[in-house]
């Protein structure tokens, strides 16, 4: 067993939150640059140039890429050989609290979703997912994500008889809403599992690097085809018209019930924020 102290987790989570919010994902920045030549809308080109300028400025001035520094989703891969000294959830939230209060990040979490909507004041709680894996280390991935793109997400229990076409149609229908979520977007799709698992799959798909495709050739083909279809919708950068609506489509699947075909679609805005570390 390897001992890991909560104090170490606090420090790492704080650092990851700060880094994710000021440094645009390098693969996203590369994709924006590569797609500049493919964009036919002059407004679309200008928006993409602003994105590149913004990414540089955020690093040089240590400013958040986007003012909406998001709610914080945390993915933990906890090695079976780790002996945790302290409270994992508490340590993660303390790391988020320190990053957001000491690092000039916006606090965007409200206590009660329905009533007063009073701000928690420190951007906690983080939304934490834990996987137990082989090994004796902890991998922590931090994904701060804005509320605007989250609102464009959709989840549907599709008819089994609809098959791949039902999935395709649902993703394209959801993508119509991408104009409100800061395109060019990354499209995360979950298929299979259950009502609760499929949303998680879609979100996890957003973590994959852009050049990556699903190891299943059939799914990889669907990813490529959907990207082409979405970029025919005309939504374009910032939703102001153009070709480059999405930078990538990432699909994750898992086994499901004989009666079910759950599907979920979630978007990451072009201000895609993500950072990870292994302890």
């Amino acid at each position, binding site marked *: 067993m390897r001992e890991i102290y909560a104090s170490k987790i606090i420090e790492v989570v704080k650092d990851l939150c700060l880094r994710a919010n000021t440094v645009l994902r390098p693969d996203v920045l590369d994709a924006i640059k590569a797609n500049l030549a493919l964009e036919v809308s002059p407004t679309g080109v200008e928006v993409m140039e602003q994105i590149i300028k913004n990414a540089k400025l955020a690093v040089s001035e240590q400013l958040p890429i986007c003012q909406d520094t998001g709610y914080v989703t945390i993915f933990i891969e906890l090695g079976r050989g780790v002996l945790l000294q302290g409270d994992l959830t508490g340590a993660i939230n303390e790391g988020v609290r320190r990053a957001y209060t000491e690092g000039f*990040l916006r606090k965007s979490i409200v206590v009660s979703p329905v009533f007063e909507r009073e701000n928690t004041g420190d951007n906690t709680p983080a939304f934490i997912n834990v996987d137990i894996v082989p090994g004796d280390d902890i991998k922590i991935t931090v994904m701060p994500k*804005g509320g605007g793109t989250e609102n464009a997400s959709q989840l549907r229990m599709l008819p089994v008889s609809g098959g791949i076409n039902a999935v395709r149609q649902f993703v394209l229908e959801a993508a119509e809403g991408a104009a409100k979520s800061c395109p060019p977007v990354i499209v995360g799709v979950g298929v299979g599992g259950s009502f609760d698992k499929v949303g998680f799959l879609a979100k996890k798909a957003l973590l994959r690097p852009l050049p990556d495709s699903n190891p299943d050739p059939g799914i990889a083909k669907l990813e490529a085809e959907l990207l082409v279809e979405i970029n025919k919708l005309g939504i374009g950068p910032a939703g102001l018209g153009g070709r480059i609506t999405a930078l990538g489509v990432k699909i994750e699947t898992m086994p499901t019930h004989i009666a079910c075909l759950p599907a979920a679609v979630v978007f990451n805005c072009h201000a895609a924020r993500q950072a990870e570390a292994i302890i």
Partner: protein
Amino acid sequence: MTKQIHTPLTDNIISELKAGDKVEISGVIYTARDQAHKRMVDSIKRGEPLPFDLKDQIVYYAGPSPAPPGRVIGSIGPTTSARMDPYTPTLLAHGLKGMIGKGPRSPAVKSALIKYNAVYLAATGGVAALLSTYVKKVELIAYPDLGPEAIYRLEVERFPVLIAIDAKGNDLYEENRQIYRQL
């Protein structure tokens, strides 16, 4: 060509603005988003005064990140405008002339823009560090308890926007969508 406009946003200026125009705004604008809109509309319903006079003013749908030392403001980009749709016609009826945000608006907002001779301006979402460089002065004027949703009075210089919906109801989001759609 980029048009320069100075606030307040008078009817004379609005008559010159067409959907698709690139515009740079200088002068005073006010931030207000979800909860600030709710409170302002509640105040109007109760006949109470508003935190600022809406006449000929521009509201920016934005909640900035906190200002680090040495800067007037943190990052400040637009939030999704559609969430303000239910409140916008009431504010337009009370003199508001422009809103800066991102994304399409409802048919009711478009009708209200025509009725009250006002415009909807699009700033680029997600480039908030860049947009902060156009803000020269900041003053918190109302609802401090709302944190990032409070109302700030901003002085801006050449703040870049596009006319997304003009006072005749021409809608850049819809028009461009049709131009670039390949289905």
